């Protein structure tokens, strides 16, 4: 490893690339090259340059488009881009800068000037990065300091969660009060909706806590697993839509009526789908088209498989390790950290399992497998055809 700054040189003119490569090597920089826009985007990912020298007129994807795309991604938008172009007209410059280029140099350029600008922008990038790291670290510390309060982590994170709910409730009650004073029915409806919604959140929390603390035997009854999954999708539809997340249902048509624990399955799926939606909300890659897929599969060996997958933020190694630990949450005081622990508990009480597959930045898939009891052979483990 070296700590040389890395320059990505992008130009369809081989001579220009060669010349610049030679010059910058002589100055002690590391360089890499690309000859069209497509290669450039690929190189940015592979080479991770500190700065990009970008020609505008190129085959396939032109420099404007490259710049626009790089500046729209969270993990590439801090890389400075200097556009190099023979287009000397002011509107061209403005277009370049509008699309995110940080600087613009007209060809033929003075090499010393270019070198000065490169030096300047590399320094800026280093500073911006340090600042970002610092801010991220601070955010972590702030959340931590909340948690490490003397009352202990559990109570502190619960308290944070409840504080938000309480504020919503107080607001709702206030609106209802005012509505009565002013005889305003619209306001009454708004206030009441808020009270209801926040009561729902409290029940959710209490259910999570109870589930967490008690042994619960599955309550077997006749049900349609696909209908349970469908209901969960309906319940979560609205919040998904608010964040432009699409929920896709992919149900096995051969799945019929079964004797299972519908309430338990409902809780499990609701937990998984809510988490999947959160994972999309917390994803910083705004370019993605977020999708949560809920899949049911009747397996040959008499098991039902529920799969909930998302293409959201994924998990780092630490999160993967702590996933099923009680009160572990990365949701900044908005989560209870009980959902997965409970989901696992319910699945296991059903003689089932839960597994995870996740890749940071790509998404996650949670799979629950439970024994399927056909209505006809209720009580038996196998099913008859």
């Amino acid at each position, binding site marked *: 490893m070296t700590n040389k700054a890395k320059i990505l040189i992008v130009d369809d003119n081989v001579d220009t690339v060669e010349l610049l490569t030679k010059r910058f090597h002589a100055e002690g920089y590391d360089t890499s090259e690309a000859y069209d826009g497509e290669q450039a985007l690929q190189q940015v990912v592979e080479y991770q340059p500190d700065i990009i020298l970008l020609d505008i007129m190129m085959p396939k994807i032109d420099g404007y488009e490259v710049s626009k795309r790089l500046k729209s991604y969270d993990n590439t938008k801090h890389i400075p881009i200097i556009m190099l172009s023979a287009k000397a007209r002011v509107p061209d410059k403005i277009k370049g800068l509008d699309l995110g280029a940080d600087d613009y140099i007209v060809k033929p350029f003075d090499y010393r000037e270019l070198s000065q600008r490169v030096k300047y922008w590399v320094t800026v990038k280093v500073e911006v990065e340090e600042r970002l790291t610092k801010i991220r670290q601070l*955010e972590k510390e702030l959340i931590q300091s909340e948690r490490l309060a003397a009352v202990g982590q559990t109570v502190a994170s619960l308290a944070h969660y409840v*504080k938000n709910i309480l504020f919503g409730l107080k607001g709702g009650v206030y609106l209802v009060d005012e509505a009565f004073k002013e005889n305003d029915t619209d306001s009454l409806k708004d206030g009441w909706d808020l009270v209801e919604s926040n009561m729902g959140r409290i029940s959710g929390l209490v259910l999570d806590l109870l589930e967490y603390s008690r042994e619960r035997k599955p309550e077997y009854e006749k049900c349609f697993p696909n209908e349970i999954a469908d209901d969960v999708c309906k319940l979560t539809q609205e919040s998904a839509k608010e964040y432009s997340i699409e929920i896709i249902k992919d149900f096995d048509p051969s799945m019929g009526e079964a004797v299972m624990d519908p309430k338990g399955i409902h809780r499990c799926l609701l937990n998984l789908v809510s988490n999947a939606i959160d994972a999309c909300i917390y994803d910083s890659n705004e370019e993605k088209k977020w999708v949560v897929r809920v899949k049911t599969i009747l397996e040959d060996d008499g098991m039902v498989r529920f799969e909930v997958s998302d293409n959201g933020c994924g998990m780092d190694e630490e999160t993967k390790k702590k996933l099923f630990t009680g009160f572990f949450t990365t949701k900044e*005081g908005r989560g209870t950290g009980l959902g997965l622990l409970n989901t696992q508990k319910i699945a296991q009480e059903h003689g089932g399992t839960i597994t995870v597959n996740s890749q940071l930045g790509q998404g996650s898939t949670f799979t629950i497998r439970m024994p399927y009891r056909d209505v006809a052979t209720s009580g038996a483990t196998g099913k008859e055809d």
Partner: protein
Amino acid sequence: MKKVLIVDDDVDIRKVVSKLIEKSGYQAMEAKNGVEGMGKVREDKPDLIILDMLMPKESGIRMYHELKTEESLKDIPVIVLSAIPKKSFLRSQKVLDEFAGQSVPEPEAYIEKPEEPEELIALMKKILG
């Protein structure tokens, strides 16, 4: 009509605060994180910003710092509305200040959830008149 922007990731909180803003005779604008918040601020400068701290995408810590270090935006008053105690917030801003080498002023007001709604209304009226 004066405009007030509420930035909070929690739908219910956005709803409550929007209603309180409208009841006080102002126009409400909403954003669900710092990125969206900064976008709204640039596009249609509000007269007051009510800002939550812990949000996905961009947090309020960062948005506050961005607001207060940008010449054209730094005079917009900000009420921080958060479940995080004020002390923790001020400490984080101080560290950021030291790092950035410039000092950012304290917010106009700091409300720790769950404060009474009347308090927020009174504050808005005091700041906006």
